């Protein structure tokens, strides 16, 4: 098995990141468009980001165990395999995507730079999951490319539609919040008298 080309690996990460950013932004746009006030926007945005992170991780692990790699890898025609050439199991793929990636990025990304040093081009996440990234077949490459661009096109249409609604919503929400911010900056608008420093308290003991 021939280790995957480094340019292809970096391009695969780029494609995956692009997809993740697109999905996350889409989630945020959807959150703004669905919500009525800033609190709701914040709650929905956090929820969408949590769901995106979890399902993206599970999706990556599933694709790695079933097809041999994330969408980025499949597009670039490379795949993740074990030493015997077989695909990773789902559990091992999850381990690689979560703990393995975390390990590789722990010490100033040294675990990723290890790819340049290892003879089989393995990073710490590969070593931890006992996997390696190798050159794959072109069939999977073509299929993945079609699926990716199809998904991205669909997402972009949904996002554009949602964007109009969310922009409108955001302006309305900002109009709601503006008086609150102004009030916090200026106080409550009332003027209070400052006590005179020469003022003395009257003696009330003589009053009958």
């Amino acid at each position, binding site marked *: 098995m021939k280790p995957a080309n480094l340019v292809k690996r970096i391009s695969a990460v780029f494609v995956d990141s692009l997809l993740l950013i697109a999905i996350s932004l889409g989630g945020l746009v959807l959150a703004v468009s669905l919500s009525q006030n800033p*609190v709701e926007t914040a*709650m929905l945005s956090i*929820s969408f980001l*949590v769901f995106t992170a979890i399902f993206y991780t599970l999706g990556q692990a599933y694709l790695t165990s079933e097809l041999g790699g994330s969408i980025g890898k499949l597009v670039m025609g490379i795949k993740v395999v074990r030493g015997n050439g077989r695909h990773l199991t789902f559990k091992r793929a999850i381990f690689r995507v979560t*703990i393995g990636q975390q*390990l590789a990025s722990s010490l100033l990304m040294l675990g990723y730079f290890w790819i340049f040093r290892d003879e089989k081009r393995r990073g*710490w996440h590969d*070593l931890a999951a006992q996997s390696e990234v190798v050159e794959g077949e072109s069939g999977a490459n073509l299929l993945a490319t079609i699926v990716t661009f199809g998904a991205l096109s669909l997402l972009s249409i949904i996002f554009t539609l949602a964007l109009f609604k969310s922009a409108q919503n955001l302006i309305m929400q900002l109009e709601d919040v503006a008086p609150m911010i102004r009030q916090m900056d200026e106080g409550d608008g009332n003027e209070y008298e400052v006590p005179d420093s020469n003022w003395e308290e009257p003696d009330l003991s003589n009053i009958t």
Partner: protein
Amino acid sequence: MKKFISYTKSSYNIVKTNPWLCVPAILLAGAGNYTRETAEAEAANYTQLGGAERLTDAMGQLANMISQTSLLTWVVFFFAAVLFVFAATALAYIAYAWVSGAIIYGIQKARSGEKVHLSTISGHAIVHGRQLVVLQIKLTVRALVVIAGAISSSMIIAGIQGLFRAIGIDGFISFALVLISTLIIAIASAYFLILLALSAPVAIRLVVVKGLSSKLALKRGMSIAKHFTLSCLGLAAGNTFLTIFAAISFGVLSLFVPANFISLLLIGALSTVLFAALRVITEANWNQHFEYLVKKEEAHTHVKI
């Protein structure tokens, strides 16, 4: 003391000759980067909010917005929160089990003169991962049960004291009863928690080195911790002292480093490596002591582990 120094010297040599052992430990060593400065900055931001009136107004509007938030949003947020907590907890358990398993197995390999590589030690840790996670969960549950037991017992004692006062028994008898029962509960809870803490490193090694199931490992671990409490406590105290000493020394040294981005980045990386190495040294100390404890336990119980 002599034994601890000899353990530490040997552990230091293991780390020096097998740097791969530090790699899994980096995962846990680099986790706690929440500094005092961050906390102070957050506190400062919070206090800059302004007067109480403005805050009350803002809180009022916030409460209004929260009340306007739809039920569906709350449901989605609740599910997201539950999912996040569940995923984070599961990952933390798996990561801890993997790190422990990989380091312990790697140290055993290194001590027997074999070459250690991340790939081989990780594979072994993954194989024992399930048992190690189950063991960690059992240890956590037991600790929580002891703490919950202590809290509920204290509440019962407070109730009994209230009852005594209500029926007119006050003074020395009530005071003595509360004092004695509180002391008994405190000592018993502390003893169980210490036993659990001491049995954990032994039980993990019984799974990784001896290949026992989590259930049997916990049983044997508790038995070893009970029979050789002082011996285990001595090693745990030595390891803690070593860690605190290193943390203080590193903290003092880092005061002399100029406060710019590159220096802070390098200091962060250096502290991660240092504490990863320290973690391997303390685990290697336990590995050496584990063999001694197993021999002693076998002689004590006449049962082969």
